[in-house]
């Protein structure tokens, strides 16, 4: 059997932490090879080693049978290895073309030969069916387009071996299908692909083989054929049987808690990102908002939580008009908020867990009296919450930075839920978390619902929404374009709606 890449017994350490422990991965020419593992299993690390971003502490790498030492991405490029990173590596202020040619620019005299560059980019994009606007700035194009730019970057460098690190996490079902077509076309052209994904369905659909790793260790490699199913993959990944279909109790919606009327909100570029949106959530229900990133989710949340003033329209909370309230007044009116970006918005990473637990309430008794902090009371509060929500931390006095992603998220949820808000906004609460943590968070959301709170769940993961929400509102171009019952809809239907399609219409 001919292997284009062999990674043998790779070991990678971060300090005392072993992220890759004796891992082997062999990629055949012309195959799509899936790499599967829980969060933090070490997938990205392994691929970063292959791409020359990290130096392994042990093991060897062979490319087309020859032992190589990939010291930096330049060498990887020369060996024909290209990588589409989990977090895009794009310069936002540069154009598509500039991003693609960066590092190997065509020249005419002293200058970058833009015409040639542009033509080359267009040629490649045509060849592989990756339509893009070569002159657009990255900051102005959608995530799906940005991903295409990432792929083009590798192709432009003549990559024969492509690494895709969770390429589908940010895409709509339609975009995912398009990407799968692109990958198939690449294979036809003789390329080989390593695909990292958490979505077992996708592996079943496109992969030829799959390597599974768990907690940094190699578990095994299997052929994806009739003998394999999703349950088998999940079991290999987690090490035990998993039940994907925990059933939750039925919802019992009561009075309207949040009433959004004809809301218009502009984004930072002055465009109407939320454009006449109407929405109601009742106590005792979870309303899921499905939609592709960039259709007004951020602005909607910002308007409700007071971070951005709406252009027009009304936001009523328990019948009270809270439009244009400051974030503090909104919070005090009974809104809790699990922000999408926990590092940027959820926590002060340099504050201790203790101090993070009172981020909204620090100025109230008993935490503050006559302008002075009562840190004893704060510590007591924090300890109680940590206990209750099983936040794994050595103590309340370590900086939030020191916690793992899952535990950081748990801390935020503990804080928000503890304030017993009437409305809990949960934006992508499980992004980047492993199954255990996801399950825990879903349970918390259900618990809140059962306590009679209204929950607004925003997620780009259709599966999550279908799984947890009681009603699904589809957001497209700043409007709710449909409300569905999760029991009676499909991913396909939601996907159509999210892409702006009407039922029955065909989309590309």
């Amino acid at each position: 059997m001919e292997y284009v890449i062999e990674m043998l017994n790779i070991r990678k350490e971060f300090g005392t932490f072993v992220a890759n422990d004796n891992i082997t991965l062999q990629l055949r020419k012309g195959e799509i090879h899936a790499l599967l593992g829980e969060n933090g299993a070490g997938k990205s690390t392994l691929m970063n080693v292959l791409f020359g971003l990290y130096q392994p502490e042990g093991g060897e790498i062979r490319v087309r049978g020859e032992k190589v030492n990939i010291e930096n991405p330049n060498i990887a490029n020369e060996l024909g290895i290209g990588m589409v990173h989990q977090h895009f590596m794009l310069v936002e202020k540069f154009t598509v073309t500039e991003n693609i040619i960066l590092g190997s620019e065509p020249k005419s005299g002293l200058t970058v030969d833009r015409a040639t560059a542009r033509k080359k980019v267009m040629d490649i994009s045509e060849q592989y069916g990756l339509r893009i606007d070569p002159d657009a700035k990255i900051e102005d194009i959608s995530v799906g387009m940005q991903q295409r730019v990432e792929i083009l970057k590798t192709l432009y460098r003549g990559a024969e071996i492509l690494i895709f690190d969770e390429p589908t996490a940010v895409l709509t079902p339609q975009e995912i299908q398009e990407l799968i077509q692109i990958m198939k076309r690449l294979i036809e052209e003789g390329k080989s692909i390593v695909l990292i994904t958490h979505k077992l369905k996708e592996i079943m659909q496109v992969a030829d083989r799959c390597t599974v790793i768990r907690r940094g260790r190699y578990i095994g490699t299997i052929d994806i054929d009739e003998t394999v199913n999703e349950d088998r993959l999940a079991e290999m990944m987690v090490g035990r049987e998993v039940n994907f279909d925990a059933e939750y109790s039925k919802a019992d919606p009561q009075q309207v808690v949040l009433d959004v009327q004809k809301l218009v909100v502009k984004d930072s570029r002055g465009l109407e990102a939320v454009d006449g949106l109407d929405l109601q959530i009742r106590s005792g229900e979870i309303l899921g908002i499905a939609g592709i990133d960039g259709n007004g989710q951020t602005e909607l949340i910002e308007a409700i939580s007071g971070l951005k003033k709406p252009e027009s329209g009304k936001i009523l909370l328990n019948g009270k008009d809270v439009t244009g309230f400051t974030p503090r007044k909104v919070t005090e009116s009974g809104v809790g908020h699990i922000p999408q970006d926990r590092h940027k918005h959820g926590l002060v990473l340099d504050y201790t867990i203790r101090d993070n637990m009172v981020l909204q309430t620090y100025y109230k008794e008993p935490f503050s009296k006559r302008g002075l902090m009562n840190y004893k009371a704060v510590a007591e509060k924090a300890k109680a919450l940590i206990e209750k929500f099983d936040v794994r931390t050595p103590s309340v006095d370590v900086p939030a930075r020191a916690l793992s992603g899952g535990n950081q998220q748990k801390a935020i949820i503990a804080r928000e839920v503890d304030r017993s808000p009437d409305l809990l906004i949960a934006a992508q609460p499980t992004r980047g978390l492993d199954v255990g943590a996801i399950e825990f968070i879903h349970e918390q959301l259900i618990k809140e619902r059962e306590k009679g709170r209204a929950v607004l769940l925003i997620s780009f993961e259709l599966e999550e929404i279908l799984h947890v929400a009681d009603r699904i509102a589809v957001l497209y171009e700043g409007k709710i374009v449909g409300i569905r019952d999760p029991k009676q809809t499909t991913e396909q239907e939601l996907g159509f709606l999210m892409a702006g399609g009407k039922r029955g219409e065909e989309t590309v």
Partner: protein
Amino acid sequence: MSFLEVLYIVVPVALAYATPLIIAALGGIFSERSGVVNIALEGIMVIGAATGIITTLTLTSMGLGGLSPWISLLVAMVVGALFSLFLAVPAILWRADQTVLGVAINMLAIGLAIFVVRVLYNKGQTDFIEYRIAKENVPILSDIPVLRMFFINVQYTSFIAIILAFVVWFVIFKTPFGLRLRSVGEHPMAADTMGINVTKMRFMGVMLSGAFGGLAGAVYAVTVTTNFSGTTIVGQGFLAIAAMIFGKWNPLGALGAGLFFGFAQALSIIGSNLPVISNVPQVLLLIAPYALTILALAGVVGRADAPKSVGIPYIKGKR
């Protein structure tokens, strides 16, 4: 005095004032575009000025005459680039806080420069140079009516500064080097994955900034002060940083900002010769350039977008 006569006085002064500012600001752009904050420009200018004068004195004594100051400019560029390693090495290799380094380097520069002068000449300031870069009337051009205001009583270094602004603009926005430099200042990890050596680019950015800063200091010294002392460079480096930010990290913007400062300064200094403003209290004239800058920033120019990763040490593999 007619308006034109006023301009014949103001324009040359403004040009002379703007010249070192522009050159130093261009240096700042190289550094910051590569992602390294350069508060140290002031100190680099001090070193440049000292080098310019010491070299000129030495070369003159070796008999190079009128060429001495010109050669000293080149020497100052080299020395400035080398001196900027005090910023580059800790900032790029050791992840030191760049702002703080800058402040320290400013202190180091003045201490070191004077110390060297003392060791060399056994006194706290140098002698005056015999050959300086003088103001001249450009042949032919200074005879053109009206336009001659740009060509009378000017130093050729002013033209060099203006030309350099265009050259730097070209380098930054048109060449592969510029593209790479900017990518490193915006998103070093992206650049790294594209095979660009972030460390090398940042070193080049800082050292170019050192070369320009050194040149700026030397130009100032061999055109204006003609000797070196502890008070030769007092604040010009900071003003250059202001010009750089004012010009939004764009070489042509820096050129504009430098000229703006120059004009404001020229007006404030010779304003009392002008009928319109001769009644304005002097303190208002003195603070005008600075106040105008603040007003311009708050009103017209607005938010200036710094290179995204400026000031942040690049750590490979950091998430």
